């Protein structure tokens, strides 16, 4: 594995988006993963529609009764992958733009599908495997506990104590190392794309240290493959 890797440098990541006051982070994590997978499969970076997921995806989690994808009230990336597989794909952002509101009728048009899911799977709670899947398959959908993200401005977040209760969906796009004055040596971190606009964090991105499942970042990692057009 390379010591550092960043899918932004390889053209697989769209600009940072903004979910607004809507608990639709799960849909942004889902589209981000499929945008990357679609880029790897087709060579084209296409921004995909979160609003399609917000309006049309009501897939339920088979493990938890009553836990279904529910627009601004939350969802789960794996369920959204399942929906996307069943629906036949996701439309382009421009064909089904984001409004940040739910309870609208589904306007999915299957003649305008821009990316299709071939398959998806979960990655084991092993940081080497997470890194390997990231490099091989593209950006990964991950869940995290976001308590420290409310006050985050920059740097590498590495809290001494952080709950592993997952409450936020984000996109893992790379990893690197940087000097930590506290530890007095280089320490590894993950690079995470968030969906709170580019004014938040480091131009919309979050760095969190690797190595001990901080804030549960390694707990729910999903990789996806897109259908190749060739």
């Amino acid at each position, binding site marked *: 594995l390379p010591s550092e890797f960043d899918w932004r440098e390889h053209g697989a990541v769209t600009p940072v988006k903004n*979910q607004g*006051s*809507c*608990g639709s*982070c*799960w849909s942004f994590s889902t589209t981000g993963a499929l945008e990357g997978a679609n880029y790897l499969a087709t060579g084209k970076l296409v921004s995909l529609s979160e609003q399609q997921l917000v309006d049309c995806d009501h897939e339920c*989690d*088979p*493990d*938890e009764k009553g*836990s279904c994808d529910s627009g*601004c*009230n*939350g*969802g*789960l*990336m*794996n369920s959204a992958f399942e929906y996307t597989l069943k629906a036949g794909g996701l439309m382009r952002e421009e064909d089904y733009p984001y409004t940040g509101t739910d309870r609208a009728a589904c306007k999915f048009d299957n003649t305008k599908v821009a990316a299709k899911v071939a*398959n998806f*799977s*979960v990655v*084991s709670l092993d940081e080497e*495997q997470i*890194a*390997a*899947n990231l490099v*091989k398959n593209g950006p990964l959908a991950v*869940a995290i506990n*976001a*308590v*420290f993200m*409310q*006050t*985050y*401005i*920059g*740097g*590498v*977040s*590495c*809290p*001494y104590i952080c709950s592993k*209760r*997952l*409450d*936020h*969906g984000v996109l893992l796009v790379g990893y690197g190392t940087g000097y*930590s*004055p*506290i*530890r007095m040596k280089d320490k590894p971190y993950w690079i995470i794309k968030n969906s*709170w*606009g580019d*004014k*938040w964090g480091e131009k919309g991105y979050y760095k969190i*240290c690797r*190595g001990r499942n901080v804030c549960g970042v390694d*707990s*729910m990692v*999903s990789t996806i493959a897109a259908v190749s057009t060739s």
Partner: protein
Amino acid sequence: NDDILIRQVVGDDDGDDHHMLNVDHHFTNFKMRFGKTYASDEEHRYRFSVFKANLRRAMQHQKLDPSAVHGVTQFSDMTPDEFKRKFLGVNRRLRLPSDANKAPILPTED
């Protein structure tokens, strides 16, 4: 193991109090920077109290998370519950779905 350090994470110095003395100024800057307006004086007073609590929280986060920078963000006038309700949205869980396909183990050496 070198990550396990003993470090004081509760405030006991004057630094925090010094920051809190300027809280009016911080709140004015916050409103200007993020274009925040409030419908009534009552709402303004409430948001100011939330902002003060969040400033203390940011300082606490800074102590717990010294390699990052914590401070005023666009969410500084929201309570943690409001923040969760409006900006987080993963259906809470601690484990992977049992029926999910497992990714094959990839070689990670050479």
